[in-house]
Structures are given as C-alpha cells and as structure tokens.
C-alpha cells in the first residue's frame, strides 16, 4: 500500500493533466488553476521543511564545532535576520527586510553573477585551442559570430554580420532543433514511464 497509493495517485493525476491540456473548457481551466493553487500550498509546506533542515544542519555544525563552523553562524544569522525582519516589520518597500534584501542580498547575488564574465573568458580560452578539426571549426565559427556582432560594417562591409547571422540561423539552429526534438521525445518517454509506474525511483525506492 505504501507504494501502490502514490503510484495510483500519480497515474490518475498524470492522465487528468494530460487530458486537461487538450480541453479548453472552463471546467478544465478551473481544475488547472486549482492544481496550481495546491502546488503553491504544497511548496509552502515544503519550504518549512527545507528551512528546518537548513537550521538543523548548521546548528549541529556549531554545536559539535565541526570544520568551518563559523560559516554556519553566518548562515544561521542570515536566516534569523530574514525571519525576524520579515515577520516583525513586513515586506513593504522601506521595511528592514527589504533594506536587507536590496543592500545585502542583491549586491551579493550580483557579485556571484559577475563572476560569469571571467569564467566565460577562461572557458573560451580552453575551448578555442585549435587542437582538432572540430575545435578549429568551433574557433572559426565563434570568431565570425563574435566579430559579426561588433559594428564593423563601415570597415569590412555587410558580409561579416550576414555570415554571423547565417551561422546562427542555419547550422546552429539545425543542431539546436535536433537536440530539442530528442528532448521532447525523452520527456514524453519519461512522463509515460512515470505515469505507467515503470519508473518508480522517485518513490524513494530502487527501480
């Protein structure tokens, strides 16, 4: 019963949601909207579990003075400060929570994101070493596309941007669509295996 009930729920809901995609009637829309509401409710409760897990993990680290336990104090302070300011003063524009969010969290996120520029440079350097025919092709295509994006029309003419566009619109698009067709079929196959109960590892068991 521990496995049969979730499998039955999965089968019924999978079938209902598949049928729902093809039924535009307002009853069908009502069902879809309610499913989304249920999902939000489930996610909210799951978030409580997530925060509980996070706090428990870091408290244990601090309690047992495990390696790098000082970082755990910072994490616990962050969680506590967000909860206290959020529940204490709300999340209006100038509330302490939003001040923390705008002047601490966002700059930190932007810092992490900005690392991407440097990582792209180092990854490009590694990729564009023309060791094989494929790597040379990649290098040539990348140089054309990059230069095609630079406003050099007055110096080299239209052929470079046109060639860059052609690379993006034809060989690149063809490869992308090929991958996407495979992804679509793979998604249908995986969904079918889950709905039919062939794929069961998500239940917390083996296969």
């Amino acid at each position: 019963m521990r496995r049969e009930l979730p499998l039955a729920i999965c089968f019924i809901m999978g079938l209902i949601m598949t049928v729902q995609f093809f039924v535009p009637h307002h009853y069908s829309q009502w069902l879809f909207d309610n499913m989304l509401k249920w999902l939000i409710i489930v996610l909210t409760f799951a978030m409580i579990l997530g925060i509980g897990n996070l706090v428990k993990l870091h408290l244990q680290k601090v309690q047992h003075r495990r390696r790098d336990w000082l970082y755990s104090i910072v994490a616990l302070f962050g969680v506590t400060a967000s909860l206290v300011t959020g529940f204490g003063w709300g999340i209006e524009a100038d509330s302490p929570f939003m001040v923390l969010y705008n002047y601490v969290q966002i700059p930190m996120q932007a810092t992490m994101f900005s690392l991407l520029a440097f990582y792209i440079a180092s990854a490009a350097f590694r990729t564009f070493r023309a060791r094989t025919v494929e790597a040379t092709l990649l290098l040539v295509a990348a140089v054309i596309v990059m230069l095609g994006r630079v406003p050099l029309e007055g110096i080299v003419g239209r052929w470079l941007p046109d060639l860059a566009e052609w690379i993006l619109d034809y060989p690149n698009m063809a490869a992308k669509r090929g991958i996407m067709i495979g992804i679509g079929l793979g998604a249908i196959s995986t969904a079918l295996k889950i709905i039919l109960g062939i794929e069961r590892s998500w239940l917390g068991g083996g296969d």
Partner: protein
Amino acid sequence: MRIASLVCAFLVLAAAPALAAAEKAGAAVVAGDVPNDAGGAIDVTWQPSPAEEEIGFKGYEVQRRVAGEPEFATVAESVVGETTFRDEDAENGVAYEYQVRVLGAEGAPTVLGTAEAKASGQWFNTARSNALAGVLFTSFVIIFFILRARGGAELFVRKIAGLEAVEEAIGRATEMGKPILFVSGLADASEISTIAAMTILAKVARKTAEYETPLIVPCYDPIVMMVEKEMVRQAYAEMGKPDAFDEDSVFFVTQSQFGYVAAVDGIMLREKPATNFYMGAFYAESLILAETGAATGAIQIAGTDRVTQLPFFITACDYTLMGEELYAATAYLGRDPLFLGSLKGQDWSKAAIILALIVGTVFLIISTDLGLWFAKLFETAAS
C-alpha cells in the same frame, strides 16, 4: 422514394453550415464564438466601411445587448485600423446581439450592421489535434517496444561515453578517499529533467553505498531534497549498508540562484570532491559551477536538457549528456529491459520525425504550396 427523401434531407442538413457560412461571409458584420477557448468570448468582425477613406473618420463603435432587450451598450469605441473586436466579457449560453457603428466626420453614427452570437466553452481544442496525434503515436511506439522488451527481445543501445564514465568516476573518488558531489539542477520536482536527475542519483547512490564513498547532495528545492533523501537512504538500505547512510549528506541550501551557486562553490573548494555530477535543469550558473569544479581538478559529468547551457558544460566538463541522453541514463545504467524498450521507442519516434522532415523537404522542392500545406499539419496552438 423514402430513401431519396432521407438523402435529400441529409444533404440539406450537411450543407446548412456551409450555407450559413456563405451567408455570413457576405454580411457586413459577423459575430461568432471564439473557437477552442474556455468560453466567455465572442469575436465580432466587420467589413471596412467606405467612410474610412474620408477625412475626419473617427473609427468604429461596437455595441452589445442581450437579444430581446431594447438598449445597446457600447463595449468598444473609436476602433481605428482594425475590423475585429473580441468581447471577453460574454456569458456562456446567452445570446448577444452586436451592432457596429461608423463614426464619420460629421453627423450621427451610421449603423454598419448587426449580428448575433452565443459564447461557449469547447471540450476539445481542435488546434491541438496534431499534438494529440503526435503524443498518441509516440506513446504507442514506446509502449509497443516496452512490451517487446518484456517479451524478451534483444535490444541494442549505443554506447554513451558520459554514462560509461560514471562507474570510473565513482571509482576514482573511492581510490582518492574524497567525496562525490551530486547537483540535481535548479528546478523543482515538477520538471522532467529534475526527475531524470533524481533517478540517476539513485543509481549513483547505490555505487557510493557499495564502495562506501561519501556523497554530498546540496539541494535547491525542499521537495527535491525530501525525495532525494529517501532515494539515497533506500539505495543504501538495498545495498545492505543502511548504517553507512549519512542523514546530513542530502540537504537543502537555498532557493536563491546565486546564493546556491556560492554555497556549492564553497563546498567544492573546501571539500575538494573528486567527482562532480551536474544533472538536471541549469541556467546562468552552469558555467560558474562547472569552471569552479574544473579548477579543483574534479572529474565532471554533466547532463542537461537546457540547450543554451550545453556549450558551457561541454567546455568545462569531462563528459556531457546532451538533451535526451539525460533521460536515457536510467535505462543505460540499470540495463532494465523495460527501460531499454522505452529508449527504442524514442528512437523509432525520432525516425518518424526524420521521415516527416524528408517528406516536407521533398514537397517543398516539388511545390511551395504543397510544402507549406505539409508544414501547416505540424503547427500547434501554444495556448
């Protein structure tokens, strides 16, 4: 005689919608239910008035009343440059009468025409018929091959380098005495790619249980964390080592994208895992994760269905599962005939798509109209 009357009656009935359409086509104003919708909407279309050419033309005014009521109410005024209006405030099953008036340069508005219609919701979206046919065909092919596999048929599956390397990567971590890091993407449990990543984790966890290699699974989503914790626990139990399972090895980090990246990068730099797995849905953080992993010297295996992130993983990882290979991983690692059957089904569906592409190309070479007609068969309404 009776049969002839019946045939005549049938022909008249069959021709009725066509006659009505022909009648409507000639009318100045036509109103009709919006097709393939949830209901509550009516489309009103009208023929352009010659007054449009006049200087000072102010546009059209659309008025509505429930059929039988005396007064019209304006639902759209000063419609310029268009000859259609969608009334999204109609009640299903109620007959509405629409009147379109021309607001000329001078004088009172002139009535262009009236039309009546009822809104209703449909039980089948005909614009998605081809999608339904595609899903049914693919499902039929996949189920057929699953049944064949169940019957004991031998199925060949090509080698996938990234999946061949899984065992080697786990063995390397074991030999080095270092942990394995498994990142299952930054999407929630409703994403197919996350589910595929979770099934790969189940296989990896069995191996780590067998070799008693530490496993680190930082999670972006709390539901994913709960499921993955159960999966890893079960994998250890199935391998006869329930005590080796570390409750804290699967944990929730944060749902902030770059906060998560910072945490996982920190884990990589502190714990120095020998093997990193990145499976599932990834966004801008893919390169930050993979480059940090490469800098620590870890062997890295990635798999994603996000086409835009694939180049980053190919660049920074040792092996990359591209798109559908991510979904094939469970079948490949488990070698279960049922899963292999589904892979075969996917391949045959792909063959059908390739055939359709060839037919479409040939049609387009023969005649543009024929090619476009064929392409139209595959157009589907997005919403």
